[in-house]
């Protein structure tokens, strides 16, 4: 088992480097990326001189465009030559200050030193880590709450509809989950805003009869109750979609288990239904569900881009959308990097948990 874990971790690190290389290449080489930005700036010239030489130098330095392509990925990871940072004002005059690490005499800076760079558009020169740090709490609350609620709803629904397969309830649940899987989340969000916020607010405009759809703080009172109150609608959207997918999964997994011999044995022994279902069947049915839940962990940090944008929620997803709209490549890169790390980690964790939860599975 230990050798298996070590092997998976090493593989994970290799995959991590390769996939960040791929993301870096996509971001740098796709037309419309930093290269084109710089070229466009160079073309905006008056009398043969660029209008904004400072910005050209700034972008070139930030994206390492003065270096050949595969090399600038390496330097983006770790650049031993870059121990100081130079910023340019609009005329191109530099100011310099030291950055990076100094460990055992190895000096340098880059992603490997934990420096994700600085925002170039949204919040100029603010470290990406700080920008994300301000949002991560909100996103964790939103995603954690909606995941928790959807698990609490989806588990019983899935179990009951598996036990009573082909009953009316089962058909209802199946139909519901199809609607959930086919639902465009942004439209669901808009509909919920109309039904629970706009209509009640305009028809019965008094107190708490309507649910807010803008982020907390708009009305001035920023306490826990108010925050929770503002979370209701986005959590509803996310839970609806999650429940649809998860309950289907629980149902399928439970059906699979209920067909097994040992469940029939349990019935034959004359055990109570509660014991058969909860103790013999459910425990095994949950194993694949645990895997699925582990694989959704990266989304907890990444946030829900669409839902957060619809509700103007102050989270990672909306930050990412803003970064994309402003082509703030360092921010985009930082977000993708964290997500890739989490996806790879979640994959390894899912495999390991699978072995822990199911003693029949042995890795060697």
């Amino acid at each position, binding site marked *: 088992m230990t050798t298996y874990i070590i092997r998976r971790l090493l593989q994970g690190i290799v*995959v991590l480097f*390769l*996939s960040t290389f*791929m*993301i870096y290449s*996509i*971001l740098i080489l*796709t*037309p*419309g*990326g930093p290269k*084109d930005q710089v070229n466009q700036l160079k073309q905006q010239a008056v009398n043969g001189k660029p209008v904004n030489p400072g910005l050209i130098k700034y972008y070139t330095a930030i994206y390492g465009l003065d270096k050949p392509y595969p090399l600038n990925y390496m330097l983006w990871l770790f650049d031993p030559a870059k121990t100081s940072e130079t910023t340019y004002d609009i005329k191109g005059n530099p100011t310099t200050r030291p950055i990076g690490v100094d460990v055992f005499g190895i000096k340098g800076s880059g992603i490997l030193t934990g420096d994700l760079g600085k925002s170039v558009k949204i919040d100029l020169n603010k470290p990406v880590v700080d920008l994300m740090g301000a949002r991560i709490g909100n996103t964790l609350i939103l995603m954690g709450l909606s995941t928790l609620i959807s698990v609490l709803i989806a588990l019983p629904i899935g179990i009951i509809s598996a036990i009573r397969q082909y009953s009316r309830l089962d058909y209802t649940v199946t*139909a519901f989950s*199809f*609607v959930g*899987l*086919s*639902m*465009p*989340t*942004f*439209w*669901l969000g*808009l*509909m919920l*805003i*109309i039904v629970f916020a*706009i*209509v009640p607010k*305009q*028809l019965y405009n008094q107190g708490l009869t309507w649910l807010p759809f803008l982020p907390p703080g708009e009305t001035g009172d920023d306490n826990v109750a108010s925050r929770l109150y503002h979370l209701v609608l986005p959590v509803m959207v996310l839970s609806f979609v999650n429940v649809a997918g998860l309950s289907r999964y629980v149902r399928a997994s439970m059906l699979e288990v209920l067909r097994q011999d040992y469940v029939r044995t349990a019935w034959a022994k004359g055990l109570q239904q509660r014991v058969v279902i909860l103790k013999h069947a459910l425990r095994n049915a949950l194993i694949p569900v645990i895997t699925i839940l582990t694989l959704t962990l*990266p989304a907890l940090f*990444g946030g829900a*881009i*669409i839902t957060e*944008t619809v509700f103007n929620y102050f989270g990672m997803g909306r930050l*990412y*959308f803003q970064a*994309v*709209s402003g*082509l703030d490549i360092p921010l*985009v890169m930082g*977000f*993708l990097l964290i*997500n*890739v790390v989490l*996806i*790879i980690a979640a*994959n390894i964790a899912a495999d390991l948990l699978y072995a822990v939860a199911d003693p029949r599975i042995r890795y060697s």
Partner: protein
Amino acid sequence: MATADVQVQERLAPAEPSQFAVTWKRFRRHRLGFIGLWSLITIVLACIFVPIIMQSLTGMTYETIDNKALLPELVNGNITSTKPMFYTGDLGFHVLGTNDVGRDVFTRLFSAGRISLAVGVITTIIIILLGGMVGALAGFYGGWVDTILMRFVDLMLAIPSLPILLIASKMLAQSQVMDKIFGRGLGSVVTIITVLSIFGWMGVSRLVRGSILSLRSLDFVEATRALGANNRRIIMKHLLPNSFAPIIVAATLGVGDFIISESALSFLGLGIQDPIPSWGNMLEGSREYMQFITNINPFEEIRGYLVLFPGIMILLTVLSINFMGDALRDALDPRLKM
């Protein structure tokens, strides 16, 4: 005499039903799938013919602006003019009214359907070809070809999909490469198809590889090889047709997924651009007037209700496709007794 009778009887005996007939019979028993099929056919026909009919009746296309129907300016959320806003046209041809720039919503709704369906179908065809090719090569040749291709698939799958779709389509739209080749409106359609296909083929390739791997060791492949068929013929004529069932299911469900992805990107403003309509960008355009949905006087309202239709169309289309895909999965699975 007797032998001739037997021969005639043999000829009259019911032939073994074809694979298609069996599948169709099983498909029809899946009630929701059958409903899905018919509603999808209805939607597709409507998307093809409604814009043609509307154009021949009124001369309006999806980009014709009816100047009489222009929406009053919104300043800080307040209406600055009191002109009647539910403008149905001189002959009442704007069945669902017009949008904020005076284009007919009914026509646009179905023109948008053309675009959304076309994006879904074309992208699916591309990913089936691309993913099928990669999967078939990896599964058939095995060894280092398999290792390299499948590790590449793993890498692509480790990249979070919606975020990379967003940034890729933003950059491509920014660079205007497609706009220069295909024109401004069509360029955005081509851009979105490109982006969706580049980041969407991995699932299919895994599927095809798995099914080729299980077929490769079967006797009939050996027999074909003994008859002198080359690799290309074995893959194209024998292996791929036999792994057809999971591909067709994945393709059906894929169309629905791509319609949702396309409309999500268009909704966020990174997909199809005006004046080409898509259900996503129609939603985006009507979103800011959503707050007027409670104004129920039809002649003094801003079109708050416009936000309803594109979403309903997306939901109906994708729901039909998903029902169909589910029915196909059941119908094509020989292990499942129906």
